[in-house]
């Protein structure tokens, strides 16, 4: 009965939680993820998506990953198109509303080549929070009366033992690995995030392992000067990878906005023929480049600078 909780505790105790340096390469980080792992993806929609880490997992040929995220965008499409994942757990999945309903999502889900479990956005958040709290579920007052419940085998309803209120119970999500991108962290994994946090803190504390990618690595002294800005503690973090523009073509708050031209190009490619489009995109942008730097080269300096100029403008008066 308490096996899942005891195992979670055992996994946590077994981790080296000491204050130690853990900076590795993107390729080394990819080897920390095993085929079939349950992955939690940080950020939301086009924001702070750990694209570089997903890119590295696809290149490493990972398969059968179950991926959960509050809201999924083109990250989910790359994972399906590359067959790295065949099971997504999320509340919303398409590239973005301005590009319409995702053709790649439709291709994979309608043909049942992959599974898309739909939970409400708050339910996703509470599943990560329950995971972070070390409890097996949390109650919520939404999802009742909807047709979503009947399609989710893991969901339960109950009457509150105190008040008799009807509640939906959502089970904890404790991913094997959380992939989270931040603006800065130290070599130990003390992570500071600017702007919207989404579900990342709960996700980090829920996961059995956190792989942090970061725009830049700063010193532990710098972290200690503003500990109130640290959102994820080193003791939850397994690995740190420095990847500038690690969310491209998505956004990293205050550093760069979404690469809109690239997104338009991508959407156009998928619109014509999603099967061919995603294969072509993966060949060109994921399998083709020798390194992350070469990937950024392919996207182009003009787009990079445009996204960075817009991103940094959030701090202008």
């Amino acid at each position, binding site marked *: 009965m308490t096996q899942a909780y005891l195992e979670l505790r055992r996994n946590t105790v077994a981790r080296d939680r000491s204050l130690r340096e853990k900076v590795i390469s993107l390729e080394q980080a990819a080897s920390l993820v095993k085929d079939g792992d349950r992955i939690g993806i940080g950020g939301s929609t086009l924001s702070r998506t750990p694209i570089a880490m997903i890119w590295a997992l696809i290149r490493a040929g990972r398969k059968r990953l179950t991926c959960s995220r509050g809201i999924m965008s083109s990250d989910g499409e790359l994972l399906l198109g590359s067959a790295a994942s065949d099971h997504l757990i999320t509340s*919303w999945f*398409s590239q973005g509303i301005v590009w319409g309903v995702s053709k790649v999502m439709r291709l994979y889900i309608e043909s049942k080549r992959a599974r898309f479990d739909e939970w409400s956005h708050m339910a996703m958040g*509470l599943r990560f929070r329950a995971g972070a709290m070390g409890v097996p579920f949390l109650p919520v007052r939404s999802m009742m*009366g909807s047709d*979503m419940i009947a399609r989710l085998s893991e969901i339960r309803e109950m009457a509150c033992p105190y008040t008799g209120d009807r509640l939906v119970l959502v089970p904890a999500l404790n991913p094997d690995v959380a992939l989270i991108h931040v603006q800065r962290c130290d070599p130990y994994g003390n992570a500071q995030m600017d702007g*919207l946090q989404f579900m990342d803190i709960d996700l980090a504390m829920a996961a059995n392992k956190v792989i942090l990618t970061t725009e830049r690595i700063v010193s532990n002294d710098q972290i200690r000067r503003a500990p109130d800005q640290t959102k994820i503690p080193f003791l939850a973090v397994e690995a740190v990878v420095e990847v500038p523009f690690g969310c491209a073509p998505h956004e990293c708050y205050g550093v760069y906005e*979404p690469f809109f031209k690239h997104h338009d190009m991508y959407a156009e490619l998928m619109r014509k023929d999603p099967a061919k489009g995603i294969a072509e995109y993966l060949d060109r942008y994921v399998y083709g480049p020798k390194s992350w730097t070469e990937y950024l080269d392919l996207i182009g300096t003009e787009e990079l600078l445009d996204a960075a100029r817009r991103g940094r403008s959030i701090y202008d008066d």
Partner: protein
Amino acid sequence: MTTEATSKARASNHTASELLAVMASRLLKDGQVVFAGVGIPLLAATLAQRLHTPGLTILFEGGTIGAFVEPGKLPPSTNEQRCTRRANMVLSSTDVLLLLQRGYIDIGFMGGAQIDQFGNLNSSFIGDPDNPTTRLPGTGGGNDISSLTDMIVAMKHEKRRFVHRVDFITSPGFIRGGTSRRDSGLVVGGMYRVVTDLGVMGFDDESRRMKVLALHPGVTVGEIQDNTGFELLVTDDLSVTEPPSGRELSVLRHLDPDRLYIA
């Protein structure tokens, strides 16, 4: 002016999405706390904030409290940094959604792909959910918003979108009418208004069926019924909305100069 003439004037003056955004913005009241989805709701709430409800507080599911979206910088979803510009606070998406459950929100404001006579919204499947014709993107925060607060839905008025019964209830309205919403465990909230490019609808207090409250200029009851896949109730004191003013349209176009939302 005849109906036809008004229609023509309407067509030449503004697009259907512009009309929708303006009419939707007028439903918000000063001082309200509104939880807005991306697209027309975000734009209409921002328009209201700039024109007639300066004290409107706009929340986004990405984690923004008190948004003040800049003209020409509309976000591609409610999760990007553009949503936070000049906001009062950012917090986690889970915590901003929990404000709905705690009861801080007056109005949820969303778009919709498909709606039925009881105001249930479908954004998950077209056709049989087991073998869908189209898998749609899903609920996002829509289910949480519609479960926990009063709702305004802004959408295009088309027969294929206004159906007798949605293929799938993603975001509950009044479920099967009557008391079925409360009976299913949803003790608060419900559909308040549906605003379209043809008119403004509410819901009957007893049966919870959709009811026409107002028509936009030049629209007839026949026209709105012809564009609806179920029988609409019509209120006894049916009114006609004021056409969009020049100021409403100019501020709207200033907010969305690239026509990202107002296609």
